């Protein structure tokens, strides 16, 4: 994934990042338990609100 993202990470840097990545993935797994097929994302696109000048 790092390569696909265009990042050049050494082994040492990767080892330091992985605990955070694993924690982040564990958190997402817990969040999946909260939702079902009917749940849309917060902040779904709303054409009426796109009034930036």
């Amino acid at each position, binding site marked *: *994934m*790092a390569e696909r*993202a*265009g*990042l*050049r*990470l050494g082994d040492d*840097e990767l080892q*330091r*990042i992985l*605990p*955070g*990545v694993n*924690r*982040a*993935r564990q*958190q*997402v797994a*817990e*969040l*999946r338990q*909260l*939702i079902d097929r009917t*749940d*849309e*994302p*917060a*902040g779904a696109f709303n054409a009426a*609100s*796109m*009034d*930036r*000048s």
Partner: protein
Amino acid sequence: MNNLDVCHLTIAEAGARLRRRDFSAVELADACLDRIDAIDGKLHSFITLTADLALEQARQAQRELLGGTDRGPLHGIPIALKDLYMTKGIRTTCHSAVLENWLPVHDATTVTKLQEAGTILLGKLGMHEFAFGGPSVDAPFPAVRNPWNTAHIPGGSSSGSGAALAAGLCYGALGSDTGGSIRTPSSHCGIVGIKPTYGRVSRYGVIPLSWSLDHAGPMARSVEDSAIILQAIAGYDAKDNASANVAVPNFLTGLKDGTKGLRVGVPRRNWFDENLGIHRQTEAVFDQTLKVLDSLGAMIVDIDGKPFSLARKANQTILVCEAYAYHEKTMQETPMKFGSSVRRRIIEGAFLSAGDYLTAQRARAVLNEQICANFANVDVFAVPGAARPPEPFEAMDPNEQNMRPSFTNPFNLTGLPAISVPCGFTEGNLPAGIQFIAPAFQEATCLRVAYAYEQATEWHKQRPPL
């Protein structure tokens, strides 16, 4: 009145004395600049000092006030800005080598509004690099220190704003808050900070960390001062895609209406004890605060903390994904310009998928509904400002931080207005804060409860031993 006393006045007090001609706007700015010169070497709260500009603005304010032009309660008041607010022609660094010498070509909307209100800009304040990742040891500017004990962190990411206010170096400041970055330093430094409702204050010209979680807001030494600054910066801005076209009430009108009969929800159950739980000293201070609220006629109501606890997981997931998206190009081209702490945190976002991000945004909608449903039974929530006292720099442990509840994240996820106000001290004379959270766009309710509590106590009058 000596310089130290002048520097610790509130905005309301300083404004009254300016108009009584006890001192001039130039003398007020000079008092701040002298104090910065005397003690900021210990705190490192300022990255860039704009002394010449401040004195020029002060002279103009003085001329206007003497000539009968009064722009309101911020006229002639020295303030400072977290260094992620764009200031035209003034270095804006985000405390990072990435932007070390960057000169923006326009001002943030909030900066323009504060200029129009007649404030005096003293300078730009230190922060966590790009508002993320903790105090950095390898940034081009030193980490900000806590005025109550310089061996301890001031909290972040608006660390310079919290430290400068507590030390009497300015009268008001702007911070930004994506996961607690206004409220945590306010709690750790013994000052007041309010994160307004998402959309209430323009983010235009504020360097993003996470677009859907970022909030701009005021920090000050009193609740009234926070209301004064919020009044000046709130309101719809077509330049900010998330700005809410909602009427701005007068935040000072109901400030003194008290808390009698107010229902205060405390989501302790299923939250305060998660993992390592809240620090025992912090919880003791919080419980004392609830007793004061009870004595003021408020009704304390137990509510379920589970959705608040889960909110942190969604907040952190969304934050790292959006932060990575914003910094992706720089991270690919010049990653070593970032400090190690912020670089590693941002890169986590590259390892999460589109599905992960959308799972968090879908959970956000569910949790928002669950959390806000409590407002059918209570008027405000009350939670600690932080889960533990400000730790010493030497003992900082990000893993421990993740093992304690986040009392701030849920209100970025939901966008609800939240204020932190001083509520006591833990061992070692380190400040603690309590937060009050109200329904969307009811900042006035947050301010009213915080003001009632503040006026019933003396915590906000304490000064650090500098």
